[in-house]
């Protein structure tokens, strides 16, 4: 069909490597703008550190707020990478090709950003040395392995290492391609990174094998990360809104939901910014859209379970919590927004093929999803604390302070900046995958129709 044009290798190289080899003006503008926001956030963090956590809107008993919400949010986004590249790689889904790297890169940067937040949240990050890194100075005490907050860093750092490695391995052939197209210092650096890639069959086999192995090995990590994040809450027997057995799968599937949506957002941006219409095609949006319907619905099922069983025991305080979530200002508004944006607007739209193949619509719906998923985390964390246990005397409210809002905003800029810079030095669409796709695509004639097909080795 017309949207799957045949492309020569030279064409592919030219199209996919140009952002690396030439720099458009808008790139510098974007970097500057994002940089400003990021440094504003840094200033806010500095203020926080210097004045103490009091600058936040937190209080007693609402000790966790926007920063933790955002932490969970970014960890969630980071599940896009593995979800797509690993699973789709293993299932040999053809449409994965143009989006895998974007997804993996998104993983790396969002995860790194997420990792910042618990540290900032504590208000005295220099003390988190105690907590994140096992150390044993004078006092002979190691971190408390019973604490989910110790599981967290280990899981996150494993995941970060794994996905970084993942990106690197899949990047190798393209690094070589860049090496061959650059001169001077860039050339040196690329040659160093390319690890002497020559594209021999053996190297290809090894690279492919590494890819498969990494995908297989990283899957458990990927599940464990968000499960553990969920257990930060699920283990807390005292916060009845959190102490639910469904939390781990609920968070993971929610993470996949937001992550895949984020990838869609990113794909649309790539298609527009880098003019990659030939590579990121509407059929890809169609496929990922179908995936999103399934994921979103599965997520909604778990959400329903979580809410239903919140009321299950009908303890007055738990009912009060749900009442607060649904009926009390401002949660009621947030709840409505959350439901609309995370499910009830996008999913029905995605049911239409036209919508799935409309890039602009997919872009905006995917953005909506992530608005909703941020709200979801907020609606889990804050009301749960605001209605903790039967002590109606203590039930409180939480309003974020400008400082918090600034830091949250900056986190988005930080991730965007990271990906932008990455796109400047490495191709965001894997060149080798694109070429492989070209090789393997075939067609079958059935009666008068030609059906797009792919070649599978026996």
């Amino acid at each position, binding site marked *: 069909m017309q949207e799957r044009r045949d492309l020569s290798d030279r064409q592919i190289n030219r199209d996919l490597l140009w952002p690396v080899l030439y720099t458009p003006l808008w790139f510098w503008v974007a970097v500057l703008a994002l940089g400003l926001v990021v*440094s504003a956030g*840094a*200033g806010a*963090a*500095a*203020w926080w*550190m*210097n004045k103490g956590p009091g600058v936040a809107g937190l209080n007693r008993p609402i000790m966790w707020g926007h920063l933790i919400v955002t932490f969970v949010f970014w960890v969630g986004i980071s599940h896009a990478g593995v979800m797509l590249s690993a699973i789709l790689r293993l299932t040999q889904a053809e449409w994965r090709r143009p989006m895998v790297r974007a997804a993996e890169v998104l993983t790396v940067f969002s995860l790194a950003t997420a990792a*910042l937040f618990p*540290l*900032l949240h504590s208000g005295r*990050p*220099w003390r988190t*040395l105690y907590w994140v890194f096992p150390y044993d*100075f*004078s*006092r*002979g005490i190691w971190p408390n392995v019973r604490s989910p907050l110790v599981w967290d860093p280990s899981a996150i750092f494993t995941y970060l290492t794994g996905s970084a490695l993942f990106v690197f391995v899949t990047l190798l052939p393209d690094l070589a391609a860049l090496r061959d197209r650059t001169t001077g210092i860039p050339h040196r650096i690329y040659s160093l990174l390319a690890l002497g890639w020559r594209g021999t069959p053996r190297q290809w086999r090894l690279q492919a094998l590494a890819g498969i192995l990494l995908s297989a090995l990283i899957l458990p990590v990927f599940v464990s990360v968000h499960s553990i994040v969920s257990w930060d809450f699920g283990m807390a027997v005292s916060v009845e809104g959190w102490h639910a057995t469904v939390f781990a799968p609920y968070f993971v599937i929610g993470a996949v939901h937001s992550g895949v949506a984020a990838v869609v957002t990113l794909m649309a941006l790539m298609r527009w910014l880098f003019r990659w219409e030939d590579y990121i095609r509407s059929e890809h949006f169609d496929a990922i859209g179908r995936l999103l319907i399934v994921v979103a619905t599965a997520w909604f099922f778990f959400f329903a379970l979580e809410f239903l069983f919140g009321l299950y025991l009908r*303890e*007055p*305080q738990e009912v009060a919590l749900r009442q607060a979530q649904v009926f009390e200002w401002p949660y009621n508004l947030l709840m409505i927004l959350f439901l609309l944006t995370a499910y009830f607007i996008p999913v029905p739209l995605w049911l239409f093929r036209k919508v799935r193949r409309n890039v602009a619509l997919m872009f905006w719906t995917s953005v909506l999803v992530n608005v909703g998923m941020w709200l979801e985390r907020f609606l889990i964390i804050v009301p749960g604390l605001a209605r903790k246990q*039967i*002590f*109606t*005397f*203590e*039930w*409180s*409210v939480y309003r974020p302070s400008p400082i918090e809002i600034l830091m949250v905003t900056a986190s988005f800029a930080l991730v965007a900046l990271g990906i932008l810079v990455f796109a400047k030095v490495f191709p965001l669409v894997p060149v080798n995958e694109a070429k492989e796709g070209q090789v393997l695509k075939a067609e079958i004639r059935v009666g008068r129709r030609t059906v797009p097909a792919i070649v599978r080795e026996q």
Partner: protein
Amino acid sequence: MEITRRDLLKLAGVGLLGAIAFQGCRIPERELRVESPVALPEDLVTGRDNWYATLCQQCGAGCGILVRVMEGRAKKVEGNPDHPLNRGKTCARGQAAVQALYHPDRLATPLLRGQPVDWEAAVAELASQIRQNRGRVFLATNPLRGHVAAVAQAFVQSAGGTLMAYEPLEDTVLRAAVKRLSGQDVLPDYDIANARTVFSFGAGWLETWGSPVRWSWAYGVFRQGRPGERGMFIHADPRFSLTAANADLWLPVRPGAEGVLALAVAYVLIEQGMASRDAADRLTAGRGLAALAAYQPEVVAAQVGVPPQRIREAATLFGARRPSVAMVGGSALAHTNGLFTAMAVLSLNALVDSVGRDGGVRFNPPPPLGLPSIPAAPFARWRQALEEMRAGRVGLLIVRGANLSYGLPAEAAEALPGVPFRVFIGPIADDTAQGCDLLLPEADPLEAWGTDAPEPGPGFATLTFQQPVVRPFRQGMSFGDVLLEAGRAAGLTLPWANMQEAVRDGARRLFALGRGSVRAGDEAAFFTGVLQRGGWWDTQERGQGTLRPEPAPATPPAPRFAGEEGEFPFHLIPFTPLGIYDGRGAPLPWLQGLPDGTTTVAWQTWVEIHPAQAEPLGIREGDWVEVISPRGSIRALAYLHPAIPQGVVAVPVGFGHVGMGRWAHRRGSNVFSILAPLTDTETGALAWAATRVRLRRLGQRQRVPKFEGVVLPLQLEERPIIPVVKEA
């Protein structure tokens, strides 16, 4: 240590962005100290501490306390377990005494017309003023007891002039009533610990009224201290106070109708034949129940605001579960018919003849050593006195602990300037100190010598000794010493050289009595003994007395109120919060920051109003409202109080000072400024609960500074935190 910290910071800096590292370097030095070695700081106990017995002067009760002193600094106040009054217990205000001692805004040096001067100059100035104003000296103090009272008396006698004690919420009416019925001018004690029923009228005896610590201790015994016996507590109060909250039976009586209620109870007692014949005859002037016809519960129910069966129920309990005791005070007496109410309630004790019995009303002997007691003068007299000042008939005004500008803002404002030379003596410059010519920093009670014969006392002769527990923190001088020094310099004839000598002399004379709690071989040993025990008491020297009811008026004297009901729909009930009391606690952040007993509000003046009545006025919690009386208006934060009776609004006193230190200055508003100058018709005491008000929403809102959360904290019926059993 330092090095590792640096490295840590560098690490943080690298990990987080330069900006943060830059900020990170500005971690205060103290932060480093948190990095202590393995042992817990709490496991290390530093040095030895000393405990000194002395007298608590945070309110008029006069409890004995022990002060923990370490390295020359007073650290902690605890009750003196030996002291018969409070038996080792303290209240919130007593605990805060140390904070008063180290208050940052204590006067550092004497100020003469705003200029710091040294004590010699200050005393000389005062002395010269005394010389010039012989016979025109006016000494305004708080109610005084013990040796300082004697000194003050001697001072005014010799200098010629007036000595008057001032207290915003005076006990004049009660005193007058007791005097009328018993002939004694001493406040009685109530033996709650042994009572089976307590019936109190408006008296916040668990909060601030009378001798709260003593009676709280008794309350504990009254409730759960006697195996198989749990006391029954009935409380009649137009406001839902903390005391009312602790009552088994709370009768939300109409303001000013407490006396009628009491006589209605009397009616039932007589009717049921539960009253003592003699007392009943006196009350009815021998005419029997007919004399009380006007007080039959069914008749007065509407006026009292309590359904008749409730009155009868309460009366029956009171009459049947003996020994029972009836107490009266607080807003019940702050009406134009206050004396009537007081006598009516006191008579109840006679009816159930619990006077002078265990579990009843106990009389106190007069103070030991014939020491004087100077109670607060009635409001009416104070208005005259101020009038004289305005007219310039007072040459020298010495104010100590009498915050006239706060209690009588309008009168004082125009009267005080009429006095040529005004002297203020006190630790912190209060409202009245503003515009005084000479400000003398008074030593904190914990730095001073003195004695006190508590009133109401424990029922026997008691003299508490006050001694300095630390070296003066500010170069202050105790009130007594100021009078003695300045007086001697002015050539007055005064009994003692200084307060320490006065106290020693007191000890000497007690030693001469040869009885009491402290026995010793010689005077010196006796003195040490007294100081160690914190005082002297003789359980043998008990008070005697009876209460003889007077005939009840045929028709109950109706209370008068300022303001028409139509224009001012609400009764205004001012009350003393747990922490800052009548304003004395206002300077102390611990007490300002103490959640109120029923509303948990702190730091602000609030007005308690019933939700059902706030609703039509469009008032929500956190609205700033204007409380308007015929006399004026104040701002207050609305607190919707689910338990306060309709038709009543309550506002705490003690806020809205000018001066009194950083934590009290211009914080909240002064409810005294809107109280109409009505007085009890017979005693001239201020009827401070006789003002009617209306509320107006001002439009601004804010979060109420309260301890409770954002939802109405109801107990969840299925999951109560405080389960309730019907009987122990």
